[in-house]
């Protein structure tokens, strides 16, 4: 088995898995029917991507496991998502800030992966990119709407941006595996994505009247398997059926 490729797929797939989970918690509880439907759509897209990645990971692993074994039957430290996507749905501004930063990273990431020398990863990236362009538009429009809407929405949007700001750095922290995958032509170049991310998010925040936080410091650990306290609770729900009723077909 190509362990490195398998591990790299987890690094790509666990972010949409956990973010998709967070968004799915909101289904039926959105601030309007239209936003409820739109957020569910994003969640659906992310889970669709996750399925493509994990089906491929299972194939690469070659142990006869399924997408569900990989999604549901790992321990906390084996998940490779960044801490940012674990953060709770405190209010709609938090949901939007988390989505905005993730989409601003996700779109250029997929643009790079579309050119991967791994045909399967390239195909997944091509397919996902169409969806993520919509997410990218949706979340940035909402940052503007909330930032430049009412006094209350502005305060909440600023608070959300301030909260998520120190979680962003981890997205661009290049692990040894990511560096190696970049160099062998399989993976994305995080160093190149960062300025694209910065200039886009700065432009939107300026338009939204949001003050860009100045701190450069960032939380990290998720990519290496050290998560926030949230992940355990997420996994409790995510894995509930698979853990409580093992080895059954659903």
């Amino acid at each position: 088995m190509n362990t490195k490729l398998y591990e790299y797929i987890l690094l790509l797939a666990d972010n949409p898995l956990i973010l998709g989970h967070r968004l799915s918690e909101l289904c039926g509880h959105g601030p309007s029917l239209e936003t409820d439907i739109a957020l569910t759509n994003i969640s659906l897209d992310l889970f669709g991507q996750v399925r493509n990645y994990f089906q491929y990971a299972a194939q690469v692993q070659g142990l006869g496991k399924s997408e569900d074994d990989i999604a549901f039957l790992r321990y906390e430290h084996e998940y490779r998502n960044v801490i940012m996507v674990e953060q709770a749905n405190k209010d709609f501004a938090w949901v939007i800030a988390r989505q905005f930063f993730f989409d601003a990273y996700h779109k250029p990431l997929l643009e790079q992966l579309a050119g991967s020398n791994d045909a399967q990863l390239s195909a997944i990236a091509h397919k996902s990119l169409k969806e993520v362009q919509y997410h990218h538009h949706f979340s940035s429009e909402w940052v503007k709407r909330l930032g430049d809407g009412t006094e209350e929405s502005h305060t909440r949007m600023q608070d959300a941006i301030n909260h998520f700001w120190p979680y962003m750095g981890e997205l661009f922290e290049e692990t040894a595996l990511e560096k190696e995958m970049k160099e062998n032509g399989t993976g994305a170049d995080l160093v190149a994505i960062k300025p694209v991310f910065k200039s886009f998010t700065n432009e939107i925040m300026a338009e939204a009247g949001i003050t860009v936080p100045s701190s450069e410091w960032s939380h990290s650990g998720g990519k290496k398997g050290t998560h926030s306290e949230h992940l355990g609770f997420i996994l409790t729900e995510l894995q509930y059926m698979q853990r409580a009723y093992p080895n059954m077909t659903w």
Partner: protein
Amino acid sequence: MQLNTEDLEREFQAKIDSGRSIEPKDWMPEKYRKTHIRQISQHAHSEIVGMLPEGNWITRAPSLKRKVTLLAKVQDEGGHGLYLYSAAETLGITRDELYEQLHSGKAKYSSIFNYPAVTWADMGAVGWLVDGAAIMNQVMLTRTSFGPYARAMVRICKEESFHQRQGFEIMLTLCQGTEVQKRMAQDALNRWWWPSLMMFGPKDEESTHTEQAMKWRIKLKTNDELRQQFVDQTIPQIKILGLEVPDKDLKWNESRGSYDFGAINWEEFWNVVAGNGPCNKERLEARKSAFENGAWVRDAAMAYAEKKEALKEAV
């Protein structure tokens, strides 16, 4: 020539009797308008309250495939709510007014959603039985007299029959699984069977709106007729699953060519309608809190749109 109300009413009824549809700008009796606002909004409320019991299981779905299917299903229900609120709005009422009626308890929604979804098998039973029962009503409504409602129903029916098949397929998978899974399926059937039969509403002799509703083509069959049709259609499916019907009085009636079934607990039905069901409070609370917590978001979107509009005009 000015037509008087009587002439207008005669013309209106003739239009309905000839099978033509009534459109929002057409003249209609005030009672017809009010009845439709009540019925369409009740239907819309049922869709969005109906998102809640199934929504509870999205984060716990047992596989990625089931999770995606369930998410899409609950999202479809939101979409149905959206078309139905829009259809009601054509009758001169706003969505906020309709929400207000839901939140104050003035407007009702289908009582079935006041029952809890306690295991994964409930996702099968709800799709199969609850959507199945809803379709019986909705297929009939594709031919109803009010155009926007009938057209909304055509689209909704297509999606609902898909949901029903998915629900049955969840049940079938459980019934072909382990003993634990079969027990889970039987338990879900036991809990959802009778409430599903109650979904068709009170017995014909106690149903107050039937006669007028038939005249206006809001109803083409009575509650009892639809209920019987549902029982006759569903019993063979229960047999395919290998489950037991939770009704000791159920038996085939050769002379009627239908199943006779046991007495429905109408006391339970009226209690749930009155607000005493297991989840009435939670369901309404969830809707109210989504609406209240979302107020600042809707205000912001409105304020932003107004600012953009003002900017455009200034240019």
